[in-house]
């Protein structure tokens, strides 16, 4: 049965041979939003997507505990078959209010939000236009539906325009799918230009704000808010597992006649709904996100701090400063050694390998949190620079040393 996985198995063995299995890191315990214990040693967490640092927020924890005591540990079924709890409806209303949308639909994970939304919105005879660097959940959502899928060059409005022109004579709705911040390199979509293309083609636009919710925009509503084009975005998809520190996903929109979506989206129907604890902590995290805009300022400062420190050390960086800082690696072996040596030195980052990365290029990916202190970031920069110099990657540091 597992014979077909032989090639993957040998690749995994190769990746793990230099030290640890990068896809099987098991922490002994998590101390805070920024530190954990791994193999008995304290490590700095620089690869969590815990953008606002809310995983240990006392109010979120208290809400989760209270909800568990009041409503139990789980819902034991789907909302379609086993009923909606008051908390699910309250979360959808709270989220819609936060996003300034008329409605929101909550899913059990962010992955399922894309799976359910894309497959239900774009049906047979419709067209999905996906950015080439889209997250796997977008590709899988497209595969689950019956729409014709067209891929366009990453962040290239002209290529999207050209493809929409070629599809102009074809019947069916056209839905363009973009991401606010792309997870691997931390770059943002050129949303204003994309909106122009969308208008020209009378297409629909869905923006996945998974990595930009709570991060971009004056109120944290994401890239569409930051770029002032929320009115042109028809569907906002996102997750509760990053800025909001829990798990779950959503789709929000202004269409009133959407009830059928709940019985069309298979990823919504055929899975258990979020447990009361998560629903309560997410509602509380939305409150925290609204009440504490300074978290976003800290996050931005921390992203700039890490980016500037690594650039000064001579690293080639993947994108403009954002909470995601990625270092493109010359080859897979160097990426694996770098990742292992950083972990040995007490800094946990993400090793990202093809085909999950743009162009299949290996990356050392980091994400900052508002909860990181400047001293922690300085420590990280020093460790990454020292390790990078040994591998010949931090050229400014080497030049200075010579």
């Amino acid at each position: 049965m597992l014979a077909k996985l032989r090639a993957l198995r040998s690749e995994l063995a190769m990746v793990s041979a230099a030290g640890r299995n990068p896809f099987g890191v098991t922490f002994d315990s998590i101390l805070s939003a920024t530190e954990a214990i791994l193999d008995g040693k304290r490590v700095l967490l620089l690869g969590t997507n815990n953008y606002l640092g809310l995983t240990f927020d006392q109010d979120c924890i208290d809400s989760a505990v209270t909800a568990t005591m009041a409503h139990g540990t789980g819902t034991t079924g789907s909302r379609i078959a086993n009923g909606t709890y008051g908390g699910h409806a309250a979360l959808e209303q709270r989220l819609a209010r936060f996003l300034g949308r008329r409605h929101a639909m909550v899913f059990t994970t962010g992955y399922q939000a894309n799976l359910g939304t894309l497959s239900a919105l774009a049906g047979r005879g419709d067209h999905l236009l996906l950015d080439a660097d889209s997250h796997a959940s977008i590709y899988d959502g497209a595969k689950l539906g019956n729409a014709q899928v067209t891929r366009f060059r990453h962040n290239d409005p002209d290529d999207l325009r050209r493809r929409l022109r070629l599809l102009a004579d074809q019947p069916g709705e056209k839905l363009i799918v973009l991401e606010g911040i792309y997870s691997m390199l931390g770059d943002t979509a050129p949303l204003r230009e994309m909106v122009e293309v969308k208008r020209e083609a009378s297409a629909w636009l869905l923006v996945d704000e998974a990595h930009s919710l709570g991060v971009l925009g004056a109120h944290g509503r994401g890239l569409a808010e930051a770029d002032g084009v929320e009115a042109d975005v028809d569907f906002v998809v996102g997750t509760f597992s990053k800025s909001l520190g829990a798990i779950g996903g959503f789709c929000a929109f202004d269409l009133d006649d959407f009830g059928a979506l709940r019985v069309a989206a298979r990823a919504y129907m055929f899975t258990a709904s979020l447990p009361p604890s998560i629903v309560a902590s997410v509602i509380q995290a939305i409150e925290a996100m609204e009440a504490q805009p300074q978290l976003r300022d800290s996050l931005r400062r921390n992203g700039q701090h890490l980016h500037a420190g690594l650039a000064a050390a001579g690293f080639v960086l993947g994108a403009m400063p954002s909470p995601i800082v990625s270092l493109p690696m010359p080859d897979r072996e160097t990426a694996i050694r770098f990742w292992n040596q950083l972990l040995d030195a007490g800094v946990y980052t993400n090793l990202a390998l093809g085909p999950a990365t743009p162009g299949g290029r290996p990356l050392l990916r980091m994400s900052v949190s508002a909860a990181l202190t400047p001293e922690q970031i300085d420590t990280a920069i020093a460790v990454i620079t020292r390790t990078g110099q040994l591998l010949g990657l931090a050229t400014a540091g080497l030049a200075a040393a010579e």
Partner: protein
Amino acid sequence: MPDEELVLREITGALEELGKGTVPVTMETSLLHDLSLDSVTALDFVMQLETRLDIIIPMDGMAEIETIGDLVGVLTRGTGKAD
């Protein structure tokens, strides 16, 4: 829809751009085994050919592409204005 001769010419040109112009290409050449194009690189390669030929290949048609011959077949059925 583009004809086979045009498609083959563009495939050769695109492979040269990728630095794979030295590999002799026939209809039986495997994208994965002979040209070392993994699933994502192959998708990007098809996207490059779509631009060259000004056509569109739906993604569900790409799963069947294993050889240059398969690729030629899919590209000649593409939606677009190339002739």
